[in-house]
């Protein structure tokens, strides 16, 4: 899962679903403007694995393993959304 957040206040405003992300999804990003109409500075927080191919074999790097349980909850529980969380000190905090 890739989370996009406002670097200023940590608010998560967009996500990309999934546990394993390849180069196509890593190229993707989300944009939003602040209340003054200026584009916000966007941070990216990855939970899961990034898949890379080194020319011979595919390997996966793990990101933010501590949050895997929460990612599963986002997938399983309809009432729980990452958009209700924010990023603080590289941790997910419920708003």
């Amino acid at each position, binding site marked *: 899962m*890739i989370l996009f957040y406002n670097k200023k206040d940590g608010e998560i*405003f*967009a*996500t*990309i*679903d*999934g546990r394993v992300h390849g180069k*196509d*999804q890593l*190229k*993707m*990003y*989300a*944009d*939003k*403007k602040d*209340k003054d109409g200026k584009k916000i500075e966007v941070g990216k927080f990855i939970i899961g694995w990034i898949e890379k191919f080194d020319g011979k074999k595919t390997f996966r790097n793990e990101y933010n393993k501590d949050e895997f349980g929460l990612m599963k909850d986002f997938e399983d529980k309809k009432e729980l*959304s*990452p*958009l209700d969380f924010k990023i603080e000190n590289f941790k997910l905090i419920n708003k």
Partner: protein
Amino acid sequence: MGDYGEKLSRSGFDVKTATDKQLVLTSKFKTFTIVASGNGNVTLLSGNYRERLEVAHGLGYVPAFAIYGKISTETEYKKVPYTPAKFDIVNPFLYCWADSTKVYMELQYGIGAPADTTANFKYYIFNNQIE
């Protein structure tokens, strides 16, 4: 080139002789495949008319896409674009479009938002090309 592909027939039909309608699956036809899906929030401040979220897909072509949305205080999702009844300009519009770089999701109020309003969007971007 020889005959190739994949077919799965319905129960009771021989896959080697089944017609297209007797198949559950066939690689003969294109299917939609998802390149990415996710969620997004847009908050429209009181008195403003429109605000949007942009998701850059990097595909280099206009992809097929599907968007669902709801006002955060409501429970049901609507298929976007959603417009209230004709001449109803006091309720929110949910709108979306795509180009070769991004998918756009927008919350609009015809007469300005009566209060700060947040819309939640669920998006699906497909590998399939519209243009």
